[in-house]
């Protein structure tokens, strides 16, 4: 185990570097634009607004409930799927760095995780404003969304290590993951509520993303703590981390040859 864990901690202590790189990545995306990083918030607001307008009118659910359900669902989905798809390229995109400098591989994972957290923070502003407009009544249960978010982060972390190492060698994985995520989007309850599926609702429980969404969304939107989803999410965290550390331990040192 030693090499993999050393790599993770040696990367972690370089935080002044990877936080700087993450911010630079985002600034690069919005360079020379007048409102800069506010575009993240602005574009998410437009996206959510249109979705609520279109899907709210065809949904049988209560309007306010549906608006909160859909927007928080999208927020988390964007975060989760962004981490999964970017995770595949986390080392491939860092090729010049990996071949030109001696830097722990985990630095690039931390950089990517930070970039997605910044994006998430900017988009969350939209949700805060929306809940305020809806005069949404939050209960103390809503605080459960915070440990839920931490579990998402914990999972994003191992997913990036795992997919990053494997897809640097097997590039088909990148495309498999991308197409997989597009399919999974539709069997994740975001654009609809589970009970609208009737007898087919049980299908959703086989999709892990349903549960990752539930542990953050349910406490805020429904005021409940989904205990079954928590079990699934914790199981994935433990299993995934074991898998990721084994992957890093056995193949991490091959990544410079593969990228």
């Amino acid at each position, binding site marked *: 185990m030693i090499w993999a864990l050393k790599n993770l901690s040696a990367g972690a202590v*370089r935080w*002044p*570097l990877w936080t*700087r*790189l993450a911010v*630079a990545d985002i*600034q*690069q995306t919005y*360079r*020379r634009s007048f409102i800069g990083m506010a575009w993240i918030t602005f574009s998410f607001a437009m996206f959510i607004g249109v979705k609520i307008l279109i899907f709210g009118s065809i949904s049988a659910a209560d309007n306010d409930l549906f608006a909160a359900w859909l927007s928080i669902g999208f927020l988390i989905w964007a975060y989760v799927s962004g981490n999964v798809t970017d995770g595949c390229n986390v080392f491939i995109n860092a090729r*010049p*760095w*990996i*071949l*030109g*400098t*001696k*830097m722990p591989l985990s630095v690039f994972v931390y950089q990517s995780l930070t970039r997605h957290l910044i994006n998430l923070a900017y988009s969350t502003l939209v949700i805060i404003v929306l809940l305020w407009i809806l005069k949404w009544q939050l209960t103390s249960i809503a605080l459960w969304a915070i440990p839920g978010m931490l579990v998402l982060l914990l999972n994003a972390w191992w997913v990036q290590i795992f997919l990053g190492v494997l897809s640097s*060698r*097997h*590039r088909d994985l990148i495309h498999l993951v991308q197409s997989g995520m597009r399919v999974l989007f539709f069997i994740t309850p975001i654009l609809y509520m589970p009970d609208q599926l009737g007898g087919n609702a049980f299908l959703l429980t086989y999709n892990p993303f349903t549960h990752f969404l539930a542990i953050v969304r349910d406490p805020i939107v429904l005021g409940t703590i989904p205990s079954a989803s928590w079990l699934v999410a914790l199981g994935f965290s433990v299993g995934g981390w074991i898998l990721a550390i084994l992957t890093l331990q056995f193949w991490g*040192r*091959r990544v*410079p*040859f*593969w990228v």
Partner: protein
Amino acid sequence: MSLLVDAKNVRLTYPRPQMGLRSLLKKREPMVPALDDVTFQLHTGDRLALVGLNGSGKSTLLRTIAGIYEPETGSIDVAGKIVALFNLGVGMRLDMSGRANVMLLGMVAGCSQLEMQDLMPGILAFSGLEDVIDDPLHTYSQGMAMRLIFATATELNPEILLLDEWIGAGDRLFREKAEKRLEAIVSDSHGFILASHNTIIIQRYCTKGLWLDDGKIAAAGDIDEVLEIFVRETSRRAKEDEARLRA
């Protein structure tokens, strides 16, 4: 005299390139190792030149010494802070200011923010870019950007310095300064390894030589001896090639 780099029987093979479905139809021949049974030592004060034709394994060996590639079998032990001056531009961001880029380059090389703040005045003075240092990098000419990179990279005091080809930067005025600077850090370093095709540069700065031929050591020892063997052998091969082409 202490041992800085100790390489024992280093062997390294690149993985087979992924060619997609085509690879199912082609015969799979075993990959030739890029480094094969490479053994050498670098002691304090050694100035080692790596010579060899294109694709003979010079850069691969440098990357292995720098710890980027791990040998398949054998071992490389390194004692001391290595600074590898290859891929100099890694870490540059065109939209950040020159100053922020200097900071970033230093942090990539493993310096802390505080250390870099201490080094900053020296870097700025040497690069001669104080007037434009807060402008974004994309407004710099290529030569100016190279000067900034060069000034930063050579400000970091290496114990063991690795160079993949001798580097130079800038216009006539800067080039002379750069030459002196590089000479100074070469002579200040405890150990120096240079991979190059330029025999004049090699003879001027190196005391020892190592000829890599298809990943194997073909000759090693005093720089003049190694260069002589290398030049003699490669000229002989060139003549043979010529004869074969004519036939």
